C-alpha cells in the first residue's frame, strides 16, 4: 500500500507532469478569464468564487487519466489485480496520490490567484478551506471515472463527459462556501454538505471503481 503510494508520487514528480502542471493550468484559467471577460473589478469579484472552483475542477480533470491509463497500458493493472494488494485499497491509494499532487497544491496556491480575480479578503480562508475539503472528492470521483474509461483508448474526453456532471454538487457547494464567506455570511451548511460528499465518496467509490477496473480488464 505504502509502496504504491510512494511509487505513484515518484512517478508524478519524475514525469514532470502531475504536480506542477495542474497548478499551471489553474493559473492559466485564472489569467485567461479576466482576459476573456474584461477587467471590470466588480464583475470579476462577483464571479471569482465560481471561476476559481471551476479552474480547480478543470485542473483536476486534466490529470485524471494519469490515475489508471498508464498503469493499464504497461500491464501494471493486470499484475496488480491478482496481487496480494486489495484492489479497493489500491484505488483509494491512487486517488490519494492524485489528490496529494493536484488538489492539495491547488488549495495552497488558490489565495494568490484569488487576488488576481479581486476576491474580497474575507473570502480567502474559506476558499482554502473549501478546496481542501472538497478536492478529495474530486480525486475520488475522478478515479471512478478513470476506472470506467480505462479500456478506452485516449478516453480523456469521454472521461470528462462522465465525470463533470458528477462534480456538479461539489462545485455548487464549494463555490457557495466561498461566496458566502466573501460576503461575510454563515458558511456552515454548504461546508457540511461539501464534507459529506467527500466522506461519502471516499467510503463508497473505491468499491465501485475497483469493480469497474475488474470488469474493464476482464473483457476477453
Amino acid at each position, binding site marked *: 500500500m505504502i509502496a504504491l503510494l510512494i511509487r505513484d508520487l515518484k512517478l508524478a514528480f519524475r514525469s514532470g507532469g502531475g504536480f506542477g502542471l495542474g497548478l499551471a493550468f489553474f493559473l492559466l484559467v485564472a489569467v485567461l478569464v479576466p482576459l476573456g471577460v474584461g477587467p471590470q473589478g466588480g464583475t470579476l469579484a462577483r464571479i471569482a468564487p465560481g471561476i476559481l472552483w471551476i479552474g480547480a475542477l478543470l485542473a483536476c480533470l486534466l490529470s485524471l487519466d494519469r490515475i489508471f491509463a498508464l498503469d493499464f497500458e504497461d500491464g501494471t493493472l493486470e499484475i496488480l489485480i491478482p496481487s496480494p494488494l486489495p484492489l479497493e485499497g489500491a484505488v483509494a491509494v491512487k486517488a490519494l496520490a492524485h489528490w496529494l499532487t493536484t488538489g492539495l497544491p491547488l488549495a495552497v496556491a488558490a489565495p494568490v490567484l484569488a487576488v488576481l480575480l479581486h476576491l474580497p479578503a474575507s473570502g480567502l480562508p474559506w476558499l482554502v478551506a473549501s478546496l481542501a475539503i472538497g478536492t478529495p472528492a474530486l480525486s475520488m470521483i475522478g478515479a*471512478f471515472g478513470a476506472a470506467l474509461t480505462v*479500456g*478506452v483508448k485516449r478516453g480523456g474526453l*469521454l472521461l470528462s*463527459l462522465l465525470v463533470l456532471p458528477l462534480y456538479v*454538487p461539489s462545485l455548487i457547494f464549494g463555490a*457557495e462556501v466561498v461566496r458566502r464567506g466573501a460576503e461575510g455570511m454563515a458558511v456552515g451548511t454548504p461546508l457540511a454538505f461539501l464534507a459529506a460528499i467527500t466522506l461519502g465518496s471516499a467510503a463508497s467509490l473505491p468499491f465501485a471503481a475497483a469493480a*469497474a477496473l475488474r470488469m474493464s480488464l476482464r*473483457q476477453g
Partner: protein
Amino acid sequence: MSLWEYANPKKFMQTSGAVLPWVAGLAAICLGTGLIWGFFFTPDDYRQGSTVRIIYLHVPAAMMAINAWAMMLVASLIWLIRRHHVSALAARAAAPVGLTFTLIALATGALWGAPMWGTWWEWDPRLTSFLILALFYLGYIALWQAVENPDTAADLTSILCMVGSVFAVLSRYAVNFWNQGLHQGASLSLDQRENISNVFWLPLVISIAGFVALFVTLVLLRTRTEIRARRLSALIARERLA
C-alpha cells in the same frame, strides 16, 4: 414458470413480437386522442393564454425523462445481479429514448419560458437538474459506444447508472439549495386535482398514457434490434473463425 424466462433472448423475441402491435396501437390511439384533444379542443388559460397547450407535451415528456432513467437503473441492477443479457440491452435501448424526452422537456420548457418568464433559459433548479440529467444520458450513451466488448460495456454502464443516480439526486438538492426558482411545483397529483382545471386535466392524462405507451413501444423495438445485432455479431464472429 418463472418471470426470468422472459430474459432469454429467444423467449423475449417471441413475446415482444406478439405484444408490440398492441402497445404500438395503444400508443397511437392515446397520443392521437390526447394531443388532438389538447391542441384543438381546449380553451386558452386565463393567465397563460394559448401557451397552456405546451403542457400536453412538456409534462409527459418531463415525467418520462425521469422514468426512463429509473427503468434503466432497474435494468442495470438486474444485469449486475442476474446477468440477463436482455435486461442490459433494454437499458441500452432506453437511453436514447430518455434523452429525446429530456430534450423535448427542455426545448418546450425553454420555448414556454420565453413568453411566461421573459427569458429562454433561467437557471431554475428544476431546469438545471434536467440539463444535468441530459448530460448523464449523454455520458451513458457515450460509454456504451466507447467500450468494445458488449458485456463489459453492459457492466460499466450499469455501474455508471447506479453511481450517476446517486449524484443526480444529490445535484437536484444542490441546485435547490442554491436558488429557489421560478418553476411551479407539482400540481398534477391526483388528490390535488383542483390545482389544474378539469378541461386541461383529462387530455393531459391521456397524453401521459400515450407517452408511456410510446416509450414502451420504442424500447421494445430498440431492444429487439439490439438483440438481433448481438446475434449478428455472434454469427459473424463464428464465420470468421470457421
